[in-house]
């Protein structure tokens, strides 16, 4: 299991690096898909089948396809010729290192960090639990509704911008 995790993690990180270093937009989009697939596999390994499938539906099936769609509609020459890095690269490297260090420190203080996840009982229905949690006033109903209002607002806004009847 650990070996599998390491392989998946290497695949995710390597393809994420390829996304930002490759000079071809379509290649970048395809590497992004590989990376997102890797994350879906991680979810599946954590017994979160629902999240794994939703990851595929939302990120690979919708967002990445929109990237490809946009790339197809742009100009034919899809290679960038400029330098991929500018002079401030060391600031961003420092910031990401600091973020990584901070996260690692926080997680190492958390007592769940070194435990292996317990197996679910065989009749455990994670999807039903998730659904109930999302509409339970004591749990996540407020964030859920706020997110849906935000999405509806974005949808209405997009329709308003796109419509040519003023």
């Amino acid at each position, binding site marked *: 299991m650990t070996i599998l995790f390491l392989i998946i993690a290497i695949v995710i990180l390597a393809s994420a690096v390829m996304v930002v270093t490759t000079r071809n937009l*379509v290649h970048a989009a395809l590497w992004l898909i590989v990376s997102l697939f890797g994350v879906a596999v991680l979810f599946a390994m954590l017994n979160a089948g629902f999240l794994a499938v939703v990851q595929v539906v939302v990120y690979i099936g919708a967002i990445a396809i929109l990237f490809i769609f946009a790339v*197809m509609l742009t100009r034919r020459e899809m290679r960038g010729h400029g330098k991929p890095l500018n002079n401030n690269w060391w600031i961003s490297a420092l910031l990401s290192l600091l973020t990584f260090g901070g996260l690692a420190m926080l997680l190492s203080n958390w007592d769940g960090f070194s435990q292996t996840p317990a197996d679910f009982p065989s009749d455990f229905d994670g999807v039903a639990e998730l659904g109930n949690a999302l509409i339970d006033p004591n749990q996540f109903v407020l964030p859920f509704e706020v997110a849906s209002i935000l999405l509806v607002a974005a949808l209405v806004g997009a329709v308003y911008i796109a419509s040519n009847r003023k």
Partner: protein
Amino acid sequence: MDWTLWLELVIKALVLIFALLGGFAYLTWYERRLLARFQSRLGPNRAGPFGLLQPIADAVKLIFKEELTPAKAYKLVFFLAPIMTLVPSVIIAAVIPWGPPFQLGDRIVTQSIADINVGVLFLMSIASIAVYGIVLAGWSSNNKYAMLGGLRSAAQMISYELTLGLAFVVAILLGNSMNLTDIVEAQRDGRWFVLVQPVGALILWIATLAEVNRHPFDMPEAEQELTAGYHTEYSGMKFALFFMAEYQKMIVVSAILATLFFGGYLGPWVDRWPLLGPVYMFLKIVILLFIMIWVRATWPRIRYDRLMAFGWKVLLPLALAVVMITAVGILLAEINPWMIWLIPIFSLIAGAFASLMIDRSLRRKAYA
């Protein structure tokens, strides 16, 4: 995991893949013969009895054809695209239950490869991946017609995916589970979901037609406008892979439709002889495929703007209404079981209202 489990999985996977391959080969024969009957012709009848060896002759021809790659094509993606189209059409079949589990020696063998508890969502996710192959094929060919076909298919498949998902939601609500086996088992005693929710079944059928780019939604490969659409530049075995993917998708979506709304593997005596399950599935799939081919033979293709308008302005609101009606009906059925039959009544009213509105808008705008 002991080795017998691995053996069982490998055998089941191989059986499924070869069944799909054989199904593809004979579906082409079935379609050509049926189309010929619809058009008062004979169809392929020379190779073997009733032309049954025709698919083999076609396969040999395609293998020996020259494979051309356009000089300005985008080689790597051009090579990957047929594979990316074919693979989803095979793995989507992995979650479909083909029959009830049966006893072999001292072990219980389930008749599906992966009986996962989010089966319906798995179908949805693979359906959303399937568009990649077509889009990338159209883009990498470096050909205007192929590019237009790819763009059209991307727009069409993304649009109809929403309706497809909502139609899945109807089946999930009625079956009270995302597991396909549970959904089939909920349809016991002849309570097929198509009887409870006929409009939902129709919406799913239309959305799957659009999703597999079949008539009358085959805009991505409209011959008169785009020569052959996204696979214009493909030849030989690469073209055969696209062809294979299209026909396997036809089989698989028929299987999905049969599973979700037409009782799946259920039928008389299926509990006593579990191996009857695949037989019932086969019969249901053949009937649904017949309807698909019938539509191809008789309906004209829909114009592209109307196709999108139909998807977004008619099918999506209707699907939303149907989901709402189903949910309310299920809640009412908890009070009184016969109230479940309010679902078909009200959804048929909604469907009739939708078709009335289409009729009115067509008349008002006086489309030529």
